[in-house]
């Protein structure tokens, strides 16, 4: 177990170091941020002065070493545009994104899992044929469009939910549905496949032969075994949700990291964009690590197999 954990952790560290380097190179490839920060009419001397003061005139290698050293100290710097520390800006936005991700996951799992189980158990029946298209429609609609439809319906026509902001719990409803609908069908399909596969196995037949109720077999045995792919997908979907949040948060003016990303790119806030990309990659790596750990909790055979290798 310890060896399994250690190897995964080492892989995670290597990934993060690689990502940090890529982020640095990409950000500096796209040119000198100084040009973006000065007003249009600035003279050559103005630009040179600001460049020197921001330290962008130093050799790239020096800037890279400086950047890694700050990262090691967990120092993300101070936003050149907002003049506030990047960490505090991120911290003020993170809770909203977590809230939205939780809301979206609730919608996605709350609808996707039951639909998948029902579709698996009643495979080939009318119930499945009715349910699956419904979740597929949810996944097929791009969020920038479904979000606006939701606003037109719930905010403009029915006038029951606010179109934007983060003033009360009611503000969270529409963004969660718009974002959650994306992952719903994925969860439903993966669950269905898992359930169908498990239902054909010997232990199910043995259970049935013993006279155990179908409901009990499905809920107590099949679901547990069918949940492994669902966990993997859930970890990957959380990363997708974070990416999807960029659009959803913009449409609903939800003050999370996605909206911050769009604002910072538009506002030319170099260091915040850099920190956001790092945070997103870090989250991805952490979620994958978490998924690996969860497998071994759900199915101890995985650890044993890895240990034997």
């Amino acid at each position, binding site marked *: 177990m310890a060896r399994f954990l250690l190897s995964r952790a080492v892989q995670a560290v290597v990934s993060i170091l690689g990502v940090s380097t890529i982020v640095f190179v990409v950000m500096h490839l796209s040119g000198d941020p100084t040009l*973006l920060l000065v007003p249009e009419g600035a003279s050559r001397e103005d630009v040179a002065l600001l460049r020197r*003061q921001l330290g962008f005139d130093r050799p790239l290698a020096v800037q890279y070493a400086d950047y890694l050293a700050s990262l090691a100290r967990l120092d993300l710097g101070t936003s050149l545009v*907002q003049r*506030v520390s990047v960490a505090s800006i991120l911290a*003020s936005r993170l809770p909203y994104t977590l809230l939205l991700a939780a809301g979206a996951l609730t919608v996605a799992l709350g609808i996707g899992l039951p639909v998948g189980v029902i579709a698996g158990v009643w495979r080939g029946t009318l119930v499945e044929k009715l349910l699956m298209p419904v979740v597929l429609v949810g996944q097929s609609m791009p969020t920038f469009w479904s979000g606006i439809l939701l606003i037109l319906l719930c905010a403009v026509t029915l006038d029951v939910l606010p179109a*934007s902001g983060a*003033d009360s719990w009611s503000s969270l409803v529409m963004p969660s549905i718009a974002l959650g609908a994306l992952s719903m069908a994925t969860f439903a399909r993966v669950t269905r496949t898992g359930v169908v596969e498990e239902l054909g196995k010997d232990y199910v037949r043995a259970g049935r032969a013993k006279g155990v109720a179908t409901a009990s077999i499905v809920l107590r045995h099949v679901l547990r075994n069918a949940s492994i792919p669902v966990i993997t997908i859930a970890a990957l979907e959380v990363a997708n949700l974070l990416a999807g949040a960029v659009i959803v948060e913009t449409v609903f003016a939800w003050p999370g990291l996605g909206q911050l990303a769009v604002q910072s790119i538009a506002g030319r806030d170099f260091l915040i964009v850099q920190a956001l990309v790092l945070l997103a990659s870090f989250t991805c790596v952490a979620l994958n690590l978490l998924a690996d750990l969860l497998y071994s909790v759900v199915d101890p055979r995985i650890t044993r197999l890895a240990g034997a290798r």
Partner: protein
Amino acid sequence: MWRIAWGLAIWGLVLSSLPARAQGGKETLSVDLPGEPATLDPHVQWDTDSYHVYRNIFDNLVTRNPDGKIVPQIAKAWRYESDTVLVLDIRTDVKFHDGTPLTVDDVVWSVQRITDPAFKSPQLSQFNSIVKAEASGPDRVRLTTSSPYPALLAQLVKLSIVSHAYVQKVGNEKFNIEPMGSGPYRFVGWQKGVRVTLTANDGYWRGRPPFKTVTFQVVPDTATRIANLKTGRSDIIRQLNPDDAASLKGESRLQILSIPTERTGYLFINALYGPTKDVRVRRAIAHAINRQLLVDALLGGYGRPVSILLTPANFGYVEGLKGYPFDPPRARQLLKEAGAEGAEISFYTSPAYDQRLVQAIQQMLQEVSLKVAISQTDQPTFLKRRQGKPEEAGSISLGRWSCACQDADGVIFPLFQSQSLWAKYANPAFDDAVTRARQTLKEEDRLKHYREAFAILEQDVPGIGLYQDFAIYAARRELSWKPTANEAFFVMEMKWQ
């Protein structure tokens, strides 16, 4: 079944009572901005979303009235002692929100703060002609410039006066998130990513502010801003595109407010490199573009064709130059004379520019036999190339220029003076005209130099003006307000009808 329907209906009723409404009587003005203010420290950022908010918290040294004329604010009068020394009389009856009086020391310190290179203000280049600020009496300030600088007052329109004592006490970072000034509204709170709330400063020296509370919401998506306006959650929204404005025309409870700004949409043409090095090719390009069609079809009429690279909202705008009327046969003839039929020209652009305009112009130039290759990159790369060497800058590119000073000096000097970053053009006669225009304070002389400069530009065509940009707002019909050419957003100027 019916039970479920009833249940849903009741649930809907309960929910509908929950959301917080913005209007709350007529005491509150709720404004939707497309972006979050970057800073509320008026000496740092000056993007539109930031100054829409902070210009209501602070007073400026001088200001512009709704007609665009420079009028007193904190300075009640001013005169030039010499070509390089401006003396301003400062009001002594103004108080900051914390009750302390605004003094000449605060004015002097505000100038010193924004011009201190170590403070790294992005606005530095607008004020760094001021080399010295000093008090010359209890209500008098002397500003010395390095050379005569005619646009000085136009720049001082943007100088907010901050409290020396308060900024020193709380420090720059805290001042930025909890600003305190002397303006009509005092700062209440800033929920990051959501809204900034201001409340009326009842003792304001220019009179009682029109609304008790003003809130500025961050709503990036245009469709969402429109939904908020339609449902009454906001009273005025900023930055609509012409299509959105057209779709709101039929709404009886709303109004579209638009104003020609000092921003010019223009086409840069490289006069130092490539096929466009030949002036006949540049003139052909100028003849090939149908400005009226661009304005009507792509800007929905929210723009006005210009024949020089400046708007009538700027000082230095000269009448009587006819520019290059739309004339494709003439364009083709010029290209034939230059032997440039079928010549390939590169059109550099970035996502910051309207791609419909880029494609329309490409089409118009291809109609007269030029081959136009559009090359799109990210904005930093675009700027690096556009501001780099002539051979790297491409043949043409689109731009939208505003100096926020409403003066020709802030437009054609940085664009075309041969030493400037943007210029891919060199003509000593032009350099001489624009340099002389910035060395004298006499308006008639300056106009004479600008007439000369624009006449040279018309001959040489290192770029052409396409249209004067309009700012578009939408508001509830009851709101009375006239937007201004410099896109100021003074809540003091608004009221309910």
